[in-house]
């Protein structure tokens, strides 16, 4: 809300410099956004929160100033001389939709001279950035910016008859507005109509056909109160936002309607001449009576933490326009002013008192008691995940929760049902709540490839959204990563992560097939018997789909499974003081035998002396072993907790391992 320094001075003496005024207003809730000089005036920009529509006019701001600086507030009397012709002889008003328009008032002035506004009026409007049109329109704008009550002037002779009808619009009704654009109306909108057609959209915009022009002579001045929600919906639907709709949306002072109408007529008579008909047409509901509010004295320190003298409280309440009805040792009871419809409860009064008394009076050094607090297990697991992955060279990415249909379709192994969709898209038409983090990470990978970044190792932890039968969709917290490394290395990173979470956890892989991945290089990950996620190398077609030049390996895991298997309270196991003994094994096996089988056989046969198995490599010697065979070379370490192992003992275990591998995997030892 822009206010003019010179204009404010008409209602309250400003015996301070602008900087101090701005500071005080800021600290009282009208946040100063900036000030600019306009000719010999200042345009002061104040942020008015939505609960304070009373400050959407200069008088309201002046009232705040008068309270803050203990100055007298003078407001214009607004009592224009009236002629003897009753307004009821000239026109009629019918209100058909009291739910959309609470109250409608009209006054009639005949015989005006439309022309340019005087300099003082031009200056006022120019300071606050409102263009001048003619004296009549300028006066309605002026009074709106003075009181916060929007007004509209119709050319009475252009109305299609001596009757104003306030009704809801018809289904296919069209309307030509002042901006000379045609708008499609619907029955949720409140319109002002003459017997033939809509002449204004109530509270939003006037019509072109009845607007005041140089040839206008007789005027109908509208001052009304429209339903805030309806005005907001209408303005939004038609994308027609005006100072008028802005004020009606926030709620105007019901008792200010008539004052603004009189004030407007007073200025028109002064500046454009003419004759005001006697009385006004006033239809709609009675102004609701304000309920009184009880403030218990003990509630002020209870909420604010400071004592404020009852006399000070009563003075502030009175200056704010509250009428005190009773006061005693326990409480004070007041009726709030009509322009402060935000004041309905005790807490509202407490806030007002604190605001005017000053928040700077509240101390900032009370002793807030200590309580225990600790990190949750999920937080600790997440911390381990981040620590291991950053140590392994992965950077943390953060991507949007909502993705495009193309991305959504590319990978969705967790659920088959269609994704949730937002009514309005978030970015670039993306409106689907993701089922996986991987498409977004591939998008981030592409961004980095485009930038020619040589190493692209990214991970993200975030939620995916799975529609379900519960009262809310299921949100699963995921860990996903994209790497330039091959399957096996990424697998190694994940095994290290699992070891960091729980060294005793067991990882198992199961073959699977997913669209995005190379068929033979994609597996399900199972941890301690739970399906935890997927790892795979992206196929050529997958790469193409995401416009990636280089291959990438992806993994996605449920953090819930990681949390479940994590061992966060480790127990000490005594370490053997005796030396280890190592042996190498080199087995020839069929191509279809997997390392996991060899390892399992080795582990079973090597217990309890086997301490460690280390895979070295797999290679093939077609000449010696023939086709369909491969060699697996690995090392084992033995150690005892109670003695130094002898070579004979070790060789015996090694022999046992060889035998078991031969029996269970058909392995032949390479001598």
């Amino acid at each position, binding site marked *: 809300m822009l206010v003019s320094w010179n204009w404010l001075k008409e209602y309250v003496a400003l015996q301070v410099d602008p900087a101090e005024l701005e500071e005080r207003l800021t600290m009282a809730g009208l946040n100063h956004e900036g000030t600019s000089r306009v000719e010999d005036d200042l345009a002061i920009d104040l942020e008015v929160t939505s609960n304070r529509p009373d400050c959407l006019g200069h008088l309201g701001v002046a009232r705040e100033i008068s309270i803050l600086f203990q100055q007298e507030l003078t407001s214009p009397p607004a009592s224009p001389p009236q002629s003897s012709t009753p307004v009821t002889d000239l026109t009629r008003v019918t209100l058909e939709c009291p739910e959309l328009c609470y109250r409608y008032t009209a006054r009639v002035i005949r015989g005006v001279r439309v022309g340019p506004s005087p300099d003082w009026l031009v200056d006022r409007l120019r300071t606050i950035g409102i263009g001048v049109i003619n004296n009549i329109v300028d006066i309605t704008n002026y009074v709106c910016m003075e009181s916060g009550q929007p007004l509209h002037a119709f050319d009475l002779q252009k109305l299609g008859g001596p009757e104003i009808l306030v009704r809801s619009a018809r289904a296919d009704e069209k309307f030509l507005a002042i901006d000379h654009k045609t708008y499609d109306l619907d029955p949720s909108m409140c319109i002002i109509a003459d017997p033939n057609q809509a002449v204004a959209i109530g509270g939003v915009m006037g019509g072109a056909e009845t607007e005041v022009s140089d040839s206008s002579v007789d005027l109908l001045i509208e001052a009304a109160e429209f339903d805030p929600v309806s005005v*907001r919906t209408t303005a939004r639907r038609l994308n027609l936002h005006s100072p008028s709709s802005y004020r009606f949306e926030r709620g105007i002072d019901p008792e200010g309607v008539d004052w603004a109408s009189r004030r407007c007529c007073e200025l028109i008579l002064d500046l454009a001449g003419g004759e005001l008909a006697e009385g006004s047409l006033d239809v709609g509901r009675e102004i609701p009576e304000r309920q009184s509010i009880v403030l218990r004295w003990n509630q002020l320190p209870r909420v604010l933490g400071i004592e404020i003298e009852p006399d000070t409280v009563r003075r502030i309440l009175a200056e704010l326009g509250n009428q005190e009805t009773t006061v005693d040792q326990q409480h004070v009871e007041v009726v709030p002013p009509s322009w402060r419809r935000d004041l309905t409860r005790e807490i509202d009064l407490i806030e007002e008192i604190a605001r005017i008394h000053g*928040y700077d009076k509240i101390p900032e050094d009370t002793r807030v008691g200590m309580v225990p*607090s600790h990190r949750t297990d999920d937080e600790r697991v997440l911390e381990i995940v981040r620590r291991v992955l950053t140590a392994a*060279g992965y950077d943390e990415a953060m991507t949007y929760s909502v993705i495009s249909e193309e991305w959504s379709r590319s990978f969705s192994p967790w659920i088959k049902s269609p994704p949730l969709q937002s009514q309005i898209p*978030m970015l670039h038409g993306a409106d689907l709540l993701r089922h996986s983090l991987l498409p977004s990470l591939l998008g981030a990978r592409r961004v980095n490839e485009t930038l020619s970044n040589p190493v692209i190792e990214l991970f993200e932890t975030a*939620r995916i959204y799975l529609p379900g039968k519960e009262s809310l969709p299921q949100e699963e917290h995921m860990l996903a990563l994209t790497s330039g490394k091959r399957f096996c290395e990424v697998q190694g990173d994940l095994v290290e992560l699992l070891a960091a979470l729980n060294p005793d956890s067991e990882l198992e892989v199961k073959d699977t097939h997913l669209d995005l991945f190379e068929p033979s290089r994609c597996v399900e990950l199972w941890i301690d018997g739970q399906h935890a996620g997927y790892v795979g190398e992206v196929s050529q077609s997958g790469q193409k789909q995401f416009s990636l030049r280089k291959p990438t390996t992806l993994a996605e895991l449920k953090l819930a499974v990681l949390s479940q298997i994590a061992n966060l309270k480790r127990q000490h196991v005594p370490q053997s003081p005796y030396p280890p003994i190592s042996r190498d094994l080199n087995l020839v096996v069929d191509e279809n035998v997997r390392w996991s089988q060899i390892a399992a056989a080795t582990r079973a046969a090597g217990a309890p002396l086997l301490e460690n198995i280390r895979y070295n490599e797999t290679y093939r010697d077609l000449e010696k072993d023939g086709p369909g065979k491969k060699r697996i070379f690995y090392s084992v370490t033995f150690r005892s907790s109670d003695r130094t192992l002898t070579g004979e003992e070790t060789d015996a275990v090694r022999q046992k391992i060889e035998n078991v591998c031969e029996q269970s995997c058909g392995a032949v030892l390479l001598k």
Partner: protein
Amino acid sequence: MTLAEFLNQLDELASSAQQQLEQAADLDALESARVEFIGTKSGRLKATQKLLGKIEKTDKPAAGKRFNEVKTQIQAAYEQQQQQQMANASGGGTGGEQFDPTVPGPRPRLGHLHPITQTIEELKDIMGRLGFSLADGPEIEDEWHNFEALNIPLSHPARDPLDNFYLRVGEKTYDQALLMRSQTSTVQIRVMENTRPPVRIISLGRVYRPDTPDATHLPMFHQIEGLLVDRQVTMADLKSVLRLFASSYLGADVHVRFRPSFFPFTEPSVEVDMRWNDKWIEMGGAGMVDPAVLKAVGYDPDEVTGFAFGLGIERLCARRHGIDDIREIYKNDVRFLHQF
């Protein structure tokens, strides 16, 4: 040969070896001195060793001990000289191999945490020290938790479908209209619904509001909110906790001030500024939990009071790291990430 004669001879050998080794001008001279004294075939030490046989049996241990001492001494002197000579040779730039300490070693590539995570962790850490525990809640919310319980009635403009990411209702019908939460206060409601006071929590995470992305706006961002509800909690406690927070975050004794503001779920509502480098900078919104909110979760506003505050994480992060366009934050350029 007597012991005394033998020892004399050893001493002489030792001092003459020391002298010659020290005087050797270069590696060649050093080598010839080495051969002369400790050469394995015909070195003088070897010759002296042969004399040991001629010593009386009873004197032999003493003679042998001294012989070994001298041998070690000469050997050490030789090695010291050799090292020095070699150092001189390489330092002298005479064409030998030179060690270059500026050659880079293999550098492990460490990943970097996202700056938003780093900001969140710092804020969480500070609030944890002040006794606030983390509470979590869904990102997809119903209207009760996102609006109604937070004192945002249906007529409130904040509920406009164009200002929120409401979900389309598909085959699955939920009890209420769902939307992506527009604030993390929803978590406060969920916690209060399920816990009796006292409550001292922070909630944080992604929130969503339709906004065209620009340097200071994104349709998705992060918030952190604190809530403390108990008997006898006052606005002075709010100010004190925020001052402790600001002082911890900025690492100095910082003052805070309140400016009146308006939020539906707190009353009084304030904007919080902190004093930094002689300027007031905006920190976030705060206030006393509105009695209507306390009632909505089944608390008695005459029994308990509470305060709440909220901060936008992107803004804090951008300010701390000098990021002037917050769209960079979600671009995930590895070079961007590696700055933090």
